């Protein structure tokens, strides 16, 4: 019986060693699998981060382009409306033109001033010139001289006001004003256009 026990011990020891070898192999395989999986996932996370950043950026760019096009559309429509008002020479256009001339004259200073306008507005301004000159003089508190230049603009409307000596000049044509509106009103327009009715 003692002899049988010795033989059994040899077999048991071998089985135990075999189990240990296989268990170790499984453990090593599991560690390798985990490390490889983690590496793959880490690479994927980096790729994902880059791709999602790019997708977000492209999305923001597309939204900005759409906003820009809508704003440009509004500006183009406004330009048409302004041109139509000038073309018709409706009363509000006449009042606006007068107001712009007075404001510009007060801003640029000088006593001898000259107006340059398109052919159509020249006719209108000839009739209004004396009245405008008086209005500017009153507002300035000193007498000024305002005359209409023989030069004519090809503009759709509005005026260029300059001192006769040419030292100061201010472009208040409709095109220049639309351009200034573009510079100054974009933020406000964007708010009105895209948030208008939101509280």
């Amino acid at each position: 019986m003692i002899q049988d026990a010795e033989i059994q011990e040899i077999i048991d020891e071998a089985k135990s060693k075999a189990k240990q070898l296989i268990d170790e192999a499984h453990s090593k395989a599991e560690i390798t699998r985990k490390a490889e999986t983690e590496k793959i996932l880490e690479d994927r996370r980096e790729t994902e981060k880059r791709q999602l950043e790019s997708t977000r950026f492209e999305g923001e760019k597309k939204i900005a382009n759409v906003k820009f096009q809508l704003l440009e559309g509004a500006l183009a429509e406004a330009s048409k409306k302004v041109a139509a008002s000038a073309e018709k020479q409706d009363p509000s256009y006449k009042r606006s033109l007068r107001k712009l001339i007075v404001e510009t004259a007060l801003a640029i200073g000088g006593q001898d001033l000259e107006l340059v306008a398109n052919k159509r507005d020249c006719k209108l301004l000839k009739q209004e010139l004396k009245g405008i000159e008086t209005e500017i003089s009153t507002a300035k508190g000193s007498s000024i001289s305002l005359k209409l230049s023989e030069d004519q603009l090809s503009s759709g409307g509005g005026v260029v006001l300059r001192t006769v000596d040419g030292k100061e000049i201010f472009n208040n044509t409709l095109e220049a004003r639309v351009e200034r509106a573009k510079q100054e009103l974009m933020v406000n327009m964007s708010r009105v256009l895209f948030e208008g009715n939101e509280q």
Partner: protein
Amino acid sequence: MSVEEIRKLVAQEKDHEAKVLKAREEAARIIQEAETQARKILCEEAENDNTYDSLLKSEAMRLEGVKKKLNDKRDTEIERLKQKAQSNMKEAIDLVVKYVLPEQE
């Protein structure tokens, strides 16, 4: 101890040694088989591309899903902006017209 008894003991001893030898051979076979199996386990793991391919495919699909959600969100926002702009276009145009022609009604 008689000669017969001594012979019997010697025979028993030889028999035992033979059994031990056989047991050792069996033990060596068991261990060798285990070593082969262990190598196989490690090799299979090293060549286990299918698991990683499937992991990569599933991750790529998930990413496409997230990108689609982002793009859908962007398209919804663009649609919302267009509708808002359509509703508020007149107000925006008037803002510019009023700036260009301050006396415009």
